[in-house]
């Protein structure tokens, strides 16, 4: 059955992007390599999805160095958290609709 997608966030259409957002909402922050390992995606794939989320201003980035190694940490912005919540709400509404 096809369901209508009101309130559905285009930025979260992709599974990886939604997963990235889930991780950042559940944690204070997460670094690139841990994200890559957790989601089992390639560098390039992850980077492009992070870029997309950054463009939406859903995440903020903090670049620093651990010794000589670059360490990039990602945080969910307030805007991103709100969007994620709304997206979950719309998923929930869809399920409720189907049960009726």
């Amino acid at each position, binding site marked *: 059955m096809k369901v209508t997608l009101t309130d559905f966030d285009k930025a979260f259409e992709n599974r990886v992007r*939604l997963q990235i957002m*889930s*991780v950042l909402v*559940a944690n204070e922050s997460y670094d690139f390599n841990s994200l890559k390992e957790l989601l089992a995606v390639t560098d390039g794939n992850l980077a492009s999805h992070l870029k997309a989320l950054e463009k939406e201003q859903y995440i903020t980035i903090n670049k620093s160095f651990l010794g000589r190694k670059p360490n990039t940490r990602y945080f969910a912005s307030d805007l991103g958290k709100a969007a994620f919540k709304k997206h979950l709400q719309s998923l929930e509404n869809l*399920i409720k609709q189907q049960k009726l």
Partner: protein
Amino acid sequence: MEDKDLYAEIASIRSIMERSTKFISLSGLSGVMAGIYALIGAGLAYKLIYTGEPQVVYVRYNDPLVVQLFLIACAVLVCSIGTGVWLTVRKAAKKGESVWNQSSQMLLKNGALPLLTGGCFVLLLLCRGYYGVISPGCLIFYGLALVAASRYTYGDVKWLGLCDIGLGLLATLLPGYGLLFWALGFGVLHILYGTIMHFKYDR
């Protein structure tokens, strides 16, 4: 979007949130082993204290008995941590997860503060001859460490921690039964907890 996808989507969000915040490769068996080591240690300590020479009233920190007890405690600690790390690494490898990730680091960081504080506190009092503080002190601070760390692993760890704190307070109330409470808290509770965890998550 198909409704099957919808459930898959939500399930994936849930699983990723859980995996990103919690370190779930802790092995239940390592709890059982730690409990067994603790019981063996307590048994040895009991033999040393209550058999052999007549009751020593004033013990000094350089007394051979104290040194022997200290060595037993260290052996129990090293064996427990060693087995725990080994079994946890094995379990993580089996599940294809890394052991040293953000959640395991958070787990250690949060557990380390109460644990190290407690360790120093007990050792300092020990040097001044307050032997009665060993058992309740270890139990209470270990319990606090578990509760603090439990946010980053299975929630059940919190209950183990709360039970240890309770036992520690009881041990404070009933001086003279320190060894018994220590054996209960570190031995029996660990075995019980490890068994529950093993059957709940490891199979």
